[in-house]
């Protein structure tokens, strides 16, 4: 007889009541706001988005970012911005926003054919 066992991939156990602890009351606790973290990895480089974290205020966000994102000297400067203040373009507008650039190849230096005799250009 072929026995069928429910399969899940490592790291993905199916959602169902397979036992465990007894349910607790869900908390009504107000959570800390979400912050986006930007790190300058080296003097002279841009700050780059590295991820996000929760913190009660900006000072704590910077402290937490130090612990979470720079444990191995990944940065020399940190910016944090509360996530709710970030405005983003709509992925649905991607075509109208970015595709017009595709046919403007004259914006690139390689568009121009120059004789080899022209040096330093």
């Amino acid at each position, binding site marked *: 007889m072929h026995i069928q066992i429910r*399969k899940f991939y490592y790291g993905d156990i199916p959602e169902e009541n397979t*036992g465990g*602890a007894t349910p607790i009351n869900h908390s009504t*606790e107000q959570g800390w706001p979400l912050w986006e973290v930007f790190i300058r990895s080296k003097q002279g480089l841009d700050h780059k988005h590295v991820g996000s974290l*929760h913190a*009660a205020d900006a000072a704590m966000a910077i402290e937490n970012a130090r612990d979470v994102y720079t444990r191995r000297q990944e940065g020399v400067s940190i910016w944090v911005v509360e996530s709710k203040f970030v405005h983003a373009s709509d992925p649905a507008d991607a075509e109208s926003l970015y595709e017009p650039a595709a046919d403007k190849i004259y914006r690139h230096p390689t568009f121009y054919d120059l004789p080899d005799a022209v040096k330093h250009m």
Partner: protein
Amino acid sequence: MELYDLEKKFQEKIEKEIKIEPRDWMPDAYRKTNLRQISQHAHSEIVGMLPEGNWISRAPSLKRKAILIAKVQDEAGHGLYLYSAAETLGTSREQMIDDLHSGKAKYSSIFNYPTLTWADMGAVGWLVDGAAILNQVMLCRTSYGPYARAMVRICKEESFHQRQGFESLLVMSQGTEAQRAMCQDAINRWWWPSLMMFGPKDSESTNSDQSMKWKIKRKTNDELRQQFVDMIAEQIKLLGMTLPDPDLRWNEERKHYDFGEINWTEFWNVVKGNGPCNKQRLEARNKAHEEGAWVRAAALAYAEKKRVRTTAKVA
């Protein structure tokens, strides 16, 4: 656009290896599967701190203690990267934590085994982190952008975890008779649970492999498990120890190691909550969360007080 077209376009992006980002359209089931997998992964990192945290105060030297603290702190960081990635799919941190604490959400069963001796710290680093790394390296190429980025960061930090574990066992394997026995005992206890980490066999399911089609997962359980066995079967020779499997032998034809059958009854028992430490782990998590409640509330109150003061000053 029709739902059918959206799904077709979505699948085309997947085929072309274009990552899916939080605000892109995605099928509901894709969102759900990712949310479940990423949050379970986050919970595993967090609960995974418990068996090792157990030995921090009893590490045999200052050097080993510093290493263990650094590793456990890394795991906390991994949990945070992953919770953040999961939050981009539209569930709050509080909800996920609640689901973990109520027992509704799962985490890797491996952390429901006890760490009984100091040698377990070596065996966990070498075998458990070793198994996790194979999965995580694969997940660096997963299709959901935030998950893949978290994995890249995690993988950079993981390799020290496995190396320190192996090195710790190597030192023991060259030690006294008692240290050698302790080393072998830890390997004996952690070997089979580590193999179970990869989940049920590929052949024992009729489920459609949607996760593979969506490129959330890129290798099957058996592929990853075989990769792990081949790796460990060679490494153990350097320890002069053995793996507790009489059926383990090199198969010249397959160019892989053959190995014995996993105890699937034990596997399902632990998944269902009846492992040696399931109860203890959840109790420890709940206790920590409850005892930290006043700290979280105080931090919020303090932030609010500061905010009111600065607004008053400006006005």
